[in-house]
């Protein structure tokens, strides 16, 4: 097959997969009824309806407050954490590094459930505190708690980018500051962190953007207080009018994308700027870490405390909850221990299917996705053409669609195109949705690997007599095998964690743990939810363990 045919094919399929759901949403937003309803006419009435709804505006402003608050918490903490981890002699650095990244890989709904059962009004820590103080000294169901938890769980995102920037920065300037008499904190605040300003700014925009994608936390923690954000408002709209109000949902989706798309574009510009900034590299000298003296234990304790709040409390809570019948005041732990919840899981065929489907989508689906991402990356790799820009922008489109939104859009595509309808209730629909949602992430993993293959290796094959595709097959692909394997592992982790994308596609045959958790939570089946959450966490833990063991870099 000539390369041009291959490129056309890959580009065509990618464009279709990315653009079709989006266009369908936009089209639907300008109708008076669901697109399959024959009475549907073109109109902007859906927009007027949504914009007249005070709940929508409430959700809109709440989202902005939460996203801003999150960034205000995560950015300073993440940047400081990066400085401490990269530049100072804080104890046990090497063991802390993978632990810091855990919040990225654990599903947000699981974390949210964990907080409810641990520090909710009748949570295990709450009851303990009540025994001591007489009252529960905190209130989980408040906007403030929601912002604090969202902020703390997004510290690793800022950490990742700040740490990468710091590692690329020469330590000369920091040493100059130390010689001039600055203490470690002054070095961090006056020299290091300003130097990586562009990277921190990028991370800030990223976290703000992720605030708009937030779904699990506000769904679980905001609901009892009727705190709605745009994503949960969209979720509730499903039932608001009794009939499927697709046009209203489409409007909300358009609004969300109208906000996130510029943010994605801004991130792209900032990232480019940040990378240019960092390219001022030092001589690669291994320098002595900054000595914190007595403060190193303070720094260590601060990191451990943060890990305790964001990882230990929710995961411990949900795990313990899955092994007890109940808890509350006066209940002795030893008397309520049970394995029944896990046995119960097996009584529900949809739950069993969900567990198997999740494994399947992670292992098999992940492999197919990585193969697809590789196919796209290879098509544009070292292709000297304006069409590569198209792919750059195509990849950004799904990035601007939160999982919930993408799942909804895909559902509509399956309903809209008769040819695809039979796939709707199979795992193929889930796989397609997941692959599109994580297109940008997967492409970044694969392209990063591809860039490490020197151009002359492919050229050598060309000169020896291999055509373009043959050279890619015989030289490039074998050389990126390990990188593809690593990508597969990372894609497995995010596919197993994913919960929001599958919600609208949930049905018999398409159950995955993530979407089941959300729907079971709605029915109040806390026993099942906690056991299933633990199963999910264990799956991710095993994947993470393998990744760390194989030395896979946990970030692209």
């Amino acid at each position, binding site marked *: 097959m000539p390369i041009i045919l291959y490129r056309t094919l890959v580009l065509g399929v990618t464009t279709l997969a990315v653009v079709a759901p989006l266009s369908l949403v936009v089209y639907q937003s300008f109708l008076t009824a669901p697109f399959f309803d024959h009475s549907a006419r073109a109109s902007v009435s859906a927009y007027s309806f949504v914009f007249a709804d005070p709940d929508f505006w409430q959700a809109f402003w709440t989202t902005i407050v939460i996203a801003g608050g999150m960034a205000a918490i995560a950015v300073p903490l993440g940047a400081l954490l990066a400085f401490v981890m990269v530049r100072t002699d804080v104890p046990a650095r090497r063991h802390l590094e993978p632990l810091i990244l855990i919040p990225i890989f654990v599903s947000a709904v699981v974390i949210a459930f964990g907080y409810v059962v641990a520090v909710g009004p009748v949570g295990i820590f709450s009851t303990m505190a009540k025994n001591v103080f007489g009252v529960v000294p905190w209130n989980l169901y408040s906007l403030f708690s929601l912002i604090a938890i969202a902020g703390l769980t997004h510290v690793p995102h800022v950490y990742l980018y700040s740490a990468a920037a710091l590692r690329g920065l020469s330590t000369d300037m920091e040493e100059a500051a130390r010689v001039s008499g600055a203490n470690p904190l002054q070095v961090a605040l006056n020299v290091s962190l300003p130097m990586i300003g562009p990277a921190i700014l990028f991370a800030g925009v990223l976290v703000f953007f992720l605030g708009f994608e937030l779904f699990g936390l506000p769904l679980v923690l905001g609901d009892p207080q009727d705190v709605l954000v745009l994503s949960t408002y969209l979720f509730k709209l499903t039932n608001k009018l009794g009939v499927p109000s697709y046009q209203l949902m489409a409007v909300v989706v358009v609004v969300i994308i109208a906000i996130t798309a510029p943010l994605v574009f801004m991130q792209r510009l900032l990232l480019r700027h940040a990378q240019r900034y960092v390219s001022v590299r030092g001589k690669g000298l291994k320098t002595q870490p900054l000595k914190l003296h007595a403060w190193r234990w303070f720094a260590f304790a601060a990191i451990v405390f943060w890990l305790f709040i964001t990882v230990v409390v929710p995961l411990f809570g949900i795990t313990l909850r899955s092994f007890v019948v109940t808890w509350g005041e006066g209940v002795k732990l030893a008397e309520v221990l049970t394995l029944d919840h896990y046995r119960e899981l097996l009584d529900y065929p949809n739950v069993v299917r969900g567990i198997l489907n999740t494994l399947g989508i992670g292992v098999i689906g992940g492999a197919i996705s990585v193969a697809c991402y590789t196919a796209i990356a290879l098509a544009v790799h070292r292709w000297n053409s304006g069409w590569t820009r198209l792919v750059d922008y195509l990849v950004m489109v799904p990035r601007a669609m939160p999982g919930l939104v993408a799942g909804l859009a895909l559902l509509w595509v399956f309903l809209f195109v008769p040819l695809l309808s039979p796939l709707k209730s199979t795992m193929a629909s889930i796989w397609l949705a997941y692959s599109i949602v994580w297109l940008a992430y997967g492409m970044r993993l694969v392209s990063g690997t591809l860039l490490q293959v020197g151009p002359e290796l492919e*050229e050598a094959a060309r000169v*020896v007599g291999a055509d373009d595709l043959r050279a890619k097959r015989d030289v490039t692909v074998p050389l990126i095998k390990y990188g593809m394997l690593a990508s597969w592992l990372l894609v497995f982790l995010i596919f197993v964690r994913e919960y929001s994308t599958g919600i609208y596609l949930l049905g018999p045959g398409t159950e995955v743990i993530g979407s089941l958790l959300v729907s079971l939570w709605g029915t109040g089946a806390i026993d099942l939810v906690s056991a299933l959450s633990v199963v999910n966490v264990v799956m991710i833990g095993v994947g993470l363990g393998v990744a760390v063991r194989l030395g896979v870099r946990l970030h692209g």
Partner: protein
Amino acid sequence: MADLVVKDLRLRLGDNEILKGISLNVTPGQVVALLGPSGSGKTTLLRAIAGLEQPHGGAIAIGDHVFYDATRGIELPAEQRGLGLVFQSYALWPHRSVFDNVAYGLKLRGTPVAEIKSRVEKTLAQIGLGPLAERYPHQLSGGQQQRVAIARALVYEPPVLLLDEPLSNLDAKLREEARAWLRTLIVTLGLSAIHVTHDQVEAMAIADKVVLLDAGIVAQIGPPTALYNDPATLFAAEFMGSNNRLDGTLLENAGGRAIMELFGERIVGVARTQAAKGGKAIGIIRLERVHCASMPGPNRLKMQLKAPMYLGERWELVFVREQLSVRTYAAAPLQPGEHYVEFPPEALWVF
């Protein structure tokens, strides 16, 4: 077999014109060196011949086999040109053994397995790597990797072998050995080759014909002796060898002889300029052609000896007079002080 002919080749990268109309030909059995400073376009020219860069004008062909022709809109992809290319970085495929690296070109040509085996073994034996066939590239030394890269380019008997600074990654001692080895190999196998290098000694040692490039144009083409002993341009004269440069005024220019004035003395040299008298003149003379004398005479200048330097097999002497500084070699050091420096008229080119 026909000549490889490059005609008026033009190539642009972005807004930058890299090749500005290059013409050259390689006859069968000839080794041509592409020589030039960095940025002169020599590697780009080689890559354009191989089909890895896209020219926008001119033509490349071997006889009827047209690789590229701008006017006829022909452009063969690299894999259909059948040339052999040795990369500067060697570009050995790390996931294949030495045998598989070399065999790949034959495999692509549908050669039967048994024949592949015998031909690869023969080629590896020719370059002295027979016993290392099962090794992987990272298990080889730099010199061995270079030989594998050459074997890989040779095995399918390309009409012309292209070498992109193949010796530049070797250390100085090894490079001189490899140079002699490569020349012997090319001559014994009767190959045609184009060899890119920025090292003039390497170019002269290895090639039958040197193509000197300057900023995307051919400065001079000729056998190594002609380039060294009879440079056509100031650039060629200054690029080859180690030189002294005399800046003066042109007094006379007639019959192939030029006379320039320097410190009131008349210095005679070979005319390399059409300029009329009265203009500026630049005299170029190789270091080894300058003599020292103890008394005044024709074509001699009185100069102060400064800093004799011991180089091992000889001494390097630096003479100065005002702005002018002249270097030369001598078997023994001279006393510092006043000396007369002679520029033999047949060795001094006046531009």
